[in-house]
């Protein structure tokens, strides 16, 4: 009974509500006209396909940064000499004093491949990934310091990502290829043990990247 009464009341209130809405719309529309409808609509109308592309591109780049900053990516893209381990708030420096070393592959005697082989190791829980041309050879290593992403703003991250001097001579299209095929990148979607994989699918990530490049690979200026 109660339910019925409530719905009746609601029904009865509707015309009043609509009335209020119409009045509100009317007043706001006139205010809009008075306050400068011309300039606002001009600005809106003059947006060019190029500007639209740029906005879309920037939006897509924000999605890209979410993946790049995920623990599976950024843990091996540190801006210092120490790889990280762990997910989210639990991220910490790699245990056992593991360091970058002169070639991004660890210190003499403590190299990445002393423990990380070319596949995830379910017995020890140690992750691994192969070289693209040799499934038995471990590719485990850190991204070079010039590709350190920790602590960067979106603008700094974008600038660094696009700078051929720092990214190993890659243009945006090459970046997409790298993200498509590199076994270390792909590992982010198959990290083994209880590590959190990248939350969006790899296919979706590539689609986002491709559209970002197609819309001009824009990154924020600040």
């Amino acid at each position: 009974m109660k339910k019925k009464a409530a719905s009746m009341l609601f029904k009865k209130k509707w015309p009043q509500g609509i009335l209020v809405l119409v009045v509100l719309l009317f007043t706001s529309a006139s205010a809009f006209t008075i306050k400068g409808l011309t300039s606002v609509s001009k600005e809106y109308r003059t947006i060019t396909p190029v500007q639209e592309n740029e906005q879309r591109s920037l939006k897509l780049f924000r999605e890209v940064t979410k993946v790049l900053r995920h623990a599976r990516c950024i843990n091996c893209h540190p801006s210092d000499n120490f790889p990280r381990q762990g997910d989210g708030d639990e991220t910490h420096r790699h245990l056992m004093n593991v360091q970058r070393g002169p070639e991004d592959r660890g210190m003499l005697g403590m190299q990445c491949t002393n423990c990380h082989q070319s596949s995830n190791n379910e017995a020890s829980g140690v992750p691994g990934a192969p070289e693209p041309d040799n499934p038995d050879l471990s590719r485990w290593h850190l991204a070079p310091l010039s590709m350190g992403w920790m602590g960067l703003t979106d603008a700094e991250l974008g600038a660094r990502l696009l700078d051929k001097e720092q990214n190993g001579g890659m243009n945006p299209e090459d970046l997409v290829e790298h993200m498509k095929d590199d076994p270390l990148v792909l590992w982010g979607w198959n990290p083994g043990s209880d590590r959190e994989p990248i939350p969006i699918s790899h296919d979706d990530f590539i689609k986002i990247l491709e559209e970002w490049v197609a819309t001009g690979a824009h990154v924020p200026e600040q």
Partner: protein
Amino acid sequence: MIQFNLNGKEVEVKDDPNTPLLWVLRDSLGLKGTKFGCGKALCGACTVHLADTTVRSCSFPVRYAEGKSITTIEGLGDAERLHIVQAAWIEEQVPQCGYCQPGFVMAAVKLLERNPDPTEEDINNAITNLCRCGTYSRIKKAIHTAARNIKAQN
């Protein structure tokens, strides 16, 4: 069947290819010198040589050993012909319980092969094995002694 060279001899094992090398060495091949500490590539007790580098054998599926050369503590030297690092270990009376020591010795040998005169910092960076008895200072001393002895020999 997986074949590899172990301490200078060809061996064949029938273990599941994903079995950690550590268990193949200890259980299938009967070489108990390589120890199990953590099973997670952290403590270094299971360190062996793979060609010119070290691997933590608890985290090394035996299939990756196919066609390679593996050396364990048993292949380093024996009571009659001690390896120079083993001799330094005795000279400095390093071990306490001894459990972690084969791993340390194997790591120290490879460090000295590539850096014959390591500093304290080089040792800290290169050897991150764990010793529950806390023999670290004697281990460092023995590495310096071995380095001196290697120099004197050459």
